[in-house]
């Protein structure tokens, strides 16, 4: 009887303590949310910051860019995150939501670039693709190969069908699902870029922009494009096992697995560190984080974290972020954003 009462009273005590938890009035660590692409870079900075300063290590959640903005824009106060990482620029609708919830001043910081690569197993030759090939191989609807303006469901089965110069292999592409930021960037950069190379699709952009976006952003669903989940390591493993397949993932995974997979040349450019940094490689995207200005003076360590992230030893060409596969910005851009961070200049 009494034995039974002990856990019960303990539970009551715990519930009572939860009541006090509610009234959380301060937070002594930085709370960061956002993109899973920026996560590997932000975590390195956070760890460095935690180990070299007296502050606690920031907490970083990998929620995806969209999910990050949702949490970030929910309001001002310690229960809301201070920083959100993003693999795309903030949308005007998101700025609106932020404003509505009292998050008026947001500081935008671009941190560098990330390349998206199409890679296959080292057991076969590297592919030489153009954006047009990528579009024709992966779009759900393509212009009728027999001619004419009409769009037909994608009839191509092998790469050779798409372009006679390409190998006679089945089109089998392992890529990210629609929830992924990598997929967003891929359709925007590669598929839209490829669509523009085809006259009839390019003409559509002028006539009916919505239709153009829909055509370019819809990837085929007949088994030639396989959604392989958010885990890029898994894609690398699958490529190793299946030398016919092509995978789509971030540059840092190619960088770590150069002995197993090779990146396809896109428009004649190899996905190398230098080519992406110089802007020659066509499928690369900027990475950002956004800071809530109202939190900068309230949460301890915010200023130091920001200056750590924007220091040359972190995001410079020889910085530790480049070791993790991030492509640095040119010096002028770095200076500009470092200045923005220093003065906490909000987006207009």
């Amino acid at each position, binding site marked *: 009887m009494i034995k039974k009462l002990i856990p019960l009273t303990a539970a009551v005590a715990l519930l009572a303590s939860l009541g006090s938890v509610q009234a959380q009035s301060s937070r002594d660590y930085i709370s960061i949310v956002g993109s899973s692409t920026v996560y590997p870079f932000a975590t390195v900075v956070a760890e460095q910051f935690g180990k070299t300063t007296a502050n606690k290590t920031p*907490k970083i*959640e*990998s929620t995806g860019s969209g999910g990050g903005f949702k949490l970030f824009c929910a309001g001002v106060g310690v229960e809301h995150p201070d920083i959100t990482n993003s693999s795309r620029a903030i949308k005007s609708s998101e700025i609106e939501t932020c404003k509505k919830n009292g998050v008026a001043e947001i500081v935008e910081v671009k941190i560098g670039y990330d390349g998206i690569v199409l890679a296959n197993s080292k057991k076969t030759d590297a592919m030489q693709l153009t954006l047009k090939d990528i579009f024709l191989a992966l779009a759900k609807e393509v212009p009728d190969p027999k001619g004419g303006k009409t769009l037909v469901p994608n009839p191509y089965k092998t790469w050779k069908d798409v372009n006679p110069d390409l190998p006679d292999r089945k089109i089998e592409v392992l890529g990210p699902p629609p929830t992924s930021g990598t997929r967003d960037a891929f359709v925007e950069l590669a598929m839209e870029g490829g669509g523009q190379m085809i006259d009839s699709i390019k003409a559509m952009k002028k006539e009916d922009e919505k239709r153009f976006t829909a055509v370019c952003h819809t990837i085929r669903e007949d088994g030639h494009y396989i959604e392989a989940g*958010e885990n890029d*390591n898994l894609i690398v493993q699958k490529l190793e096992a299946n030398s016919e397949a092509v995978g789509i993932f971030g540059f840092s995974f190619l960088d770590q697995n150069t*002995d197993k997979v090779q990146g396809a040349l896109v428009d004649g450019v190899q996905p190398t560190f230098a080519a992406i940094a110089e802007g020659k490689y066509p499928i690369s995207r900027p990475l950002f984080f956004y800071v809530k200005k109202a939190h900068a003076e309230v949460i301890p360590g915010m200023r130091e974290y920001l200056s750590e992230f924007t220091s040359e030893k972190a995001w410079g060409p020889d910085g530790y972020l480049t070791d993790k*596969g991030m492509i640095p910005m040119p010096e002028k851009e770095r200076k500009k954003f470092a200045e923005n961070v220093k003065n906490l200049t909000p987006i207009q």
Partner: protein
Amino acid sequence: MWCENTGNNMSSAVSEASKPEQPLRTLDIVNAGLAKRYRAERRFRRLGLAAIIASLAFLSMLFTDIFWKGHTAFRQTFIQMNIVFDPELIDKENLAAADYNGLIRKALEREFPEVSGRGDRRELNQIVSPGAAFILQEQLRDNPDLIGQTLPLWVPANDDVDMLMKGHIDRYAPEDERRLSDKQLAWLNRFEEQNRIQKKFNKTFFTAGDSREPELAGIWGATVGSLYTLFVTLLLSFPIGVATAVYLEEFAPKNRWTDIIEVNINNLAAVPSIVFGLLGLAVFLNLFGMPRSAPTVGGLVLTLMTLPTIIIAGRAALKSVPPSIREAALSIGASKMQMVTHHVLPLAMPGMLTGTIIGMAQALGETAPLLMIGMVAFIVDIPGSFTDPSTVLPVQIYLWADSPERAFVERTSAAIMVLLVFLIAMNAVAVYLRKKFERRW
């Protein structure tokens, strides 16, 4: 074989004897079909056996794969360096501010004086882990007299070096296909010749929190997070679950309302766990304003998830206590509550505990509901209380599995092994409790 033969002989003998128009006897029909029935049974048994063998094969494949990939993570490559605790670089008053990376760079420079040029120096520094500086810092903090002395110290090698030593990077691959350059290999060979590069037990793996450097990453942070979370879960779900089971089984009237409650509890046990996460997000975080990523909230969400399991197991345990015990207690004048607390509950307790432990084991392996309440996060500091941000073991596995660095592959498998050990231990306790205290009637 024997059965089959006799069956055939008998049936043929009988059929010959009864050639004239005698009616077909039941025995004849049975005998005629006997061989077929025996065959069917043997087929059925063989299929059952095949099913067991197949599942065992899959299980052993899984275990071998995990063990094969993970066993190397328990050892880590260390390099012995002659560190000079240079008084010029260390401020005695402020040990934390000393440039420990500088000490390591200097030691490497002394080792390889011929290396010059910024790029080469950078490559040279890359063979030692960035965490080596913290080891020096600890050494000096424990023993400040080291200043001015030279000490041979084992410091962790970088993850790429570790992978090379463990054979996960092919030394003979062309230079552009591996992450270590020819120069770095030559330097490492020098260390190897002097026997100053060795694999030692990886203590960091069991004592550190998460890190983005594989050689510095450990599971202790996640383990502590799991313990806090499970403690909250146990503290809430066990008393609530047992009380619910006792009330429903012993006191509640049997009517439509209790039927509805029972159906709902059974349904809840089958609800996907992510739903409980969404509920936790809506109720605990948004409505009650509890902190994100805290073990308390994780424990609350997992309580919701494990409650149905505990209630169902508890009711089954109570049902298995024979009614004669209850009647005997009541007949000698015990009140209903005395009957339950003195007799029925102690007898049902082993079954209830088993159910609770299995529910806990389920909660230990859960990630989906924790995703919604922010426990899928990068957390370096070891959580120190129920409200500190923390993560749990399965989440740590998930995060490592998604990291680009090659060295995280083996650490992922090693963390899975640790999680499996916890699960097996918990289930073993459940089996032991059942065997030791269970009463059969």
